[in-house]
């Protein structure tokens, strides 16, 4: 456990995050280009939706990340409450904007997809509504944290919202099974074989990987900014800056 505590210290994590971030961005760019090439050029058209289905290469990875990032935030929130580690709270805050962005992308691309296929941009079905609530949870999280002056109290309040809000994630995921929705069921799940052609699935999974790498890179950069803000004036930071200047 001691190595874990060492990396939970901002002094160790700050330079490490700075070194790792560019690699994650590079991985995201490379896999993103490959994924888009497979999805938009290599993969065939769909037998019922024609070209419109190609939005899945953006829509599905964005929707997956929107849910997964919230679970991660709740996880960091629990770590923060349990172990009182500052860095956990910082990671939680660093993830929120990326999560909100992916949620917005999922909703937006979904609307653009819905118009030509369903015949409407938006319906208030269980899947769409719960995903919209997720966007409000992300925005609420960021607003709550920004509204409280004292960073420690802000972290506590925000962590509580992250943990409470995580109840929404299984509702989003299972909404298409539990209730009649206009949104179709999952094409890819852990319990059933994928309901899509292999090359389409490959493109989508590569795009999901790219979204993952982007998320890690972006949150590492953001957590560095948060560390700088919170630890301004700390001895280790002064030493680090002095070393970098040499």
């Amino acid at each position, binding site marked *: 456990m001691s190595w874990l505590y060492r990396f939970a210290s901002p002094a160790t994590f700050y330079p490490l995050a700075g070194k790792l971030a560019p690699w994650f961005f590079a991985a995201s760019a490379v896999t993103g280009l490959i994924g888009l090439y497979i999805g938009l050029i290599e993969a*065939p*058209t*769909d*037998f*019922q*939706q024609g070209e419109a*289905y190609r939005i*899945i290469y953006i829509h599905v990875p964005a929707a997956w990340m929107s849910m997964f990032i919230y679970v991660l935030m709740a996880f960091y929130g*629990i770590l923060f*409450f*349990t*172990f*009182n580690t500052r860095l956990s709270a910082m990671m939680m805050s660093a993830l929120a904007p990326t999560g909100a962005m992916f949620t917005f992308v999922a909703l937006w691309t979904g609307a653009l997809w819905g118009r*030509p*296929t*369903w*015949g*409407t941009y938006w*319906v*208030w*079905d*269980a899947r769409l509504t719960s995903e919209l609530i997720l966007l409000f949870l992300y925005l609420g999280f960021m607003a709550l944290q920004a509204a409280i002056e004292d960073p420690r109290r802000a972290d506590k309040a925000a962590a509580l919202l992250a*943990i*409470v809000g*995580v*109840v929404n994630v299984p*509702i989003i995921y299972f909404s298409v099974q*539990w*209730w*009649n*929705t*206009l949104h*179709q*069921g*999952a*094409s890819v799940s852990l319990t059933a074989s994928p*309901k*899509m*052609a292999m090359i*389409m699935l490959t493109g989508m999974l590569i795009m999901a990987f790219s979204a993952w790498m982007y998320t890690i890179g972006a949150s590492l950069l953001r957590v560095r900014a948060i560390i700088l803000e919170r630890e301004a004036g700390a001895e280790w930071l002064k030493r680090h800056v002095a070393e970098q200047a040499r």
Partner: protein
Amino acid sequence: MAIKARHRRFAWIAVGVLALGSATALVLNAFQSNLVFFYTPSQVFANEAPTGRNFRIGGLVEMGSVARSSANVEVKFKVTDNAQTIPVVYHGILPDLFKEGKGVVAQGALSPDGVFVASQVLAKHDENYMPPEAAEALRKAGHPVKPQQEFVDKARYSVQQQ
């Protein structure tokens, strides 16, 4: 064994999340009927659909049931879940994916003569993606892509609940 402060804090979080989760499950269960986006024909026949206000029906467009009138944009078709069937009449433009044998969700009200008068018709596509050649090959091999099984499954489930 002494209980450390962090164990106690973690236990409180676990209890809190559990309590919240159960509360949410109970609430969702209580609102079950308000969370469904549409009712299947079987549910309508089992009187599960609301009366006296607009609601949505969902199912498959019955094969060979679509009749367009040449005089205006009136379309007549039948919605089925392979157990029950409801005739629908609609004035308006249909979405591109509206097809016989495919999923559809129509909003409107049931008229006294049992015809569903729709004010909006949406296509419900499924979660299968494949190239047209693959779909054609499956059809030739005698295993066509099944129309949304969920309509049939949910209809059966709803009838079993009776």
